[in-house]
């Protein structure tokens, strides 16, 4: 046996040069690893910035400023000419009640201009509030009742601290005298921030303080319903055909390539297709959630087909052979055995496709779902808008208060998406365990 110590000096691996080289290589290694970690953290930081920026802008949309005012439900104002029908009650000038109450609260405000800005500290929705009160309980007429009324958007923004006090008056939305009145109200303890139920229960409005997302949510629901009803059966049927029955030939190849390409077509192109096909050729109603749903169905279809095919393919062949061996026909095998086995996977893909459709905006702009719609849609042919389009519309509005509403609506949309994706993940888990 050769003496090991003799060999050592010749061993290239431990020479000083080699050692230095190895150190360098290890440093490069560490740098490289750090680079990968940094990339991940930059991406995560971007995500965090996005969430923090939107959440910090949007959380205040869920509360609303209200002022308490002693309103005298003056009979002469509510029934100006003695007509006591329900229609007269609905049409009465409730604004005057607020104005009278404000005049009583601030007796020193006299000039016309000042009075107008004083009346402006309440929202246009406040008179609707009074009307609902009177319609619900007519016995309040003739009494003086302390009522919490919705403040105007500027007052709301000021109360939430979005409009700073220490700016020159000319550059400030809320003027000095309005601040004075506001401070007076704060001193009296009649300023309150309450949970903004109206945000979840009313339709769109030009007034940010009373604008809500219920209309858009209902529109989104109808649109997704149509998308699901159209895309799911067609998608599953094509997937079954392509996986279980289709002969391997040119036509099947074309269908396959076509589906893959369709999944990558920009969504706006589907919008143009929807406009051409459903509006200009079929003359379906513009802005309706039905047209939106059909357009999104065409867009979601390839996603559903691709995921359905993958999960049908994952069903072991032994199940097919067993069914066929027991004398089932090919269709019975497909529908009674393969389809139920692959259903969780298909549903996962469908939910992911639908959650994409829920967040989609561009194709719906093309088919006129951008109209300003106050009413809550009652069926699939009513003009409607959807949550993402509502977000787009509000993001375009100049009022400061709409920034908060937009972020609030985004938070609601994200909650829905998280819910849908969590459902998809749960289904996938269940599916994986069964295998």
């Amino acid at each position, binding site marked *: 046996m050769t003496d090991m110590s003799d060999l050592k000096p010749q061993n290239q691996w431990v020479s000083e040069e080699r050692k230095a080289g190895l150190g360098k290589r290890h440093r490069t290694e560490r740098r490289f*690893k750090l680079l990968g970690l940094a*990339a991940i953290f930059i991406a995560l930081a971007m995500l965090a910035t996005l969430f923090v920026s939107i959440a910090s802008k949007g959380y205040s949309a869920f509360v609303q400023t209200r002022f308490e005012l002693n309103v005298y439900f003056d009979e002469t104002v509510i029934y100006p000419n003695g007509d006591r029908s329900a229609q007269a009650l609905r049409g009465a000038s409730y604004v005057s009640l607020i104005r009278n109450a404000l005049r009583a609260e601030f007796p020193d405000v006299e000039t016309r201009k000042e009075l107008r800005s004083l009346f402006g500290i309440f929202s246009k929705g406040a008179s609707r509030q009074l009307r609902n009160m009177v319609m619900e309980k007519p016995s309040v007429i003739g009494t003086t009742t302390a009522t919490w009324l919705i403040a105007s958007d500027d007052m709301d923004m000021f109360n939430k601290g979005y409009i700073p006090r220490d700016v020159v008056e000319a550059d400030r939305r809320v003027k000095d005298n309005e601040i004075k009145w506001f401070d007076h109200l704060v001193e009296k303890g009649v300023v309150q921030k309450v949970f903004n139920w109206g945000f979840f229960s009313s339709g769109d409005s030009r007034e940010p303080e009373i604008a809500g997302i219920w209309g858009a949510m209902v529109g989104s629901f109808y649109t997704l319903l149509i998308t699901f009803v159209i895309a799911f059966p067609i998608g599953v049927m094509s997937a079954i055909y392509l996986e279980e029955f289709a002969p391997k030939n040119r036509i099947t190849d074309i269908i396959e390539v076509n589906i893959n390409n369709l999944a990558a077509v*920009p*969504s706006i*192109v589907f919008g143009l*297709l929807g406009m051409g096909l459903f509006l200009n050729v*079929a003359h379906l109603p513009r802005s309706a959630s039905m047209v939106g749903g059909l357009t999104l169905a065409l867009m979601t*279809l390839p996603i559903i087909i691709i995921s359905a095919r993958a999960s049908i393919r994952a069903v072991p062949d032994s199940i097919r052979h067993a069914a066929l061996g027991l004398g089932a026909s090919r269709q019975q095998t497909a529908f009674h055995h393969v389809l139920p086995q692959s259903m969780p996977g298909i549903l996962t893909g469908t939910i992911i496709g639908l959650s994409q459709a829920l967040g989609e905006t561009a194709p719906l702009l093309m088919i006129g779902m951008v109209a300003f719609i106050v009413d809550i849609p009652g069926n699939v042919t009513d003009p409607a808008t959807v949550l993402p389009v509502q977000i787009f519309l509000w993001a375009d509005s100049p009022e400061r208060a709409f920034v908060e509403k937009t972020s609030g609506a985004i938070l609601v949309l994200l909650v829905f998406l998280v819910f849908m*994706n969590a459902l998809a993940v749960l289904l996938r888990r269940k599916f994986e365990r069964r295998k």
Partner: protein
Amino acid sequence: MSFTSLIILLLAICTFGYWFGSKKALTLGPKQGRVGRGQPHQFGAFVVIWGGIPPLLLFALWSVFSVLTGETESKIFDQIDQVVFPVLLILSTALGCYAAINKIKAGVRARKTLEFVIYSFLILASTVSVFTTIGIVFSLLFETLNFFEKVPVFDFVLGLEWSPQTALREDQVGSSGAFGAIPLFAGTMLITLIAMLVAVPLGLFSAIYMTEYASKTFRAIVKPILEILAGIPTVVYGFFAALTVGVFFRDVGSAIGLDVVSESALAAGVVMGMMIIPFISSLSDDVITAVPQSLRDGSYALGATKSETVLKVILPAALPGIVGAVLLAVSRAIGETMIVVMAAGFAANLTANPLEAVTTVTVQIVGLLVGDQEFDSAKTLAAFALALALFLITLGLNVIALIVVRKYREKYD
């Protein structure tokens, strides 16, 4: 008769037919009825098919007819639509069911008919996607041809000026409008380039770290979080780009003495890149994982460090797949609409300066088509020409990407 009640009535007739058919099948006796010929419920379904298909065909024919003639206003049409047509539907269903029930005898192969019909429906369903593509191509092509009758192809493809505003009055200056698409495509390319500069390094490096370095727990936690980025609606990115990132870049620019507009290409591009990161990272993740372990083992056996293995063995092996992923990402960036609609400019601006506002193809399509429109003006038709160009470009990129990826797969399978 309203549409809903008509449907309910038709369904009721079919339900009755189903019930009657399955009852009658039971009277056939076990010999002919059960085995081979079909189960009672199959006979029921057989009746429903005979009852359901005629009104379905009639309905399709009638819709095609009314769409083709385009006549929906006249009185006669209304009467046919409201009275004659529903009655016809009900009659056809009833007759179909009746004929089918009569047909149920020993020797009728209910299951065969049933399976044939189901098979046809399956084929029909799988052609929907083909018809979608055909629909896209035709709806874009016709309007594009109309557009090129008004504006020469050359002016569109090579023109450097884009101002689609058509004049209100005949004598107005510049009433013809200019339809040169180069500034739009240049703007699109600029924003896409910025997006790729953000997304490719970040996406690729995170994919390398995830596959080669990360522990199992790290991967299980971080990968889904990264993929959230892909699930966020683009309108949210648009809002973020316009209100947060754009303003941030403008403020940073003015702090260091640079003139950055708040609708800069930089803001839109960076946010778009952010959206694309998970796209690149998960696709590259797949191709890197698909590189055979033997290659890694060979490299380690020769004494290479992990980073050397990645850079000199794995990346070259995975390169075609990564190129495919980047191409797919580029095609997605080109077609992205909401981010640029909300955060990029609207006026055409031929520049390579990322601090200025540029416009893109998708922004112009939205701008030209949202709102009121007359359908034969060059302005509206231009949107279709742009969309066709967009469709062809993304299609081309996808086809190339798929070919590249497929080639690569063959190499290792």
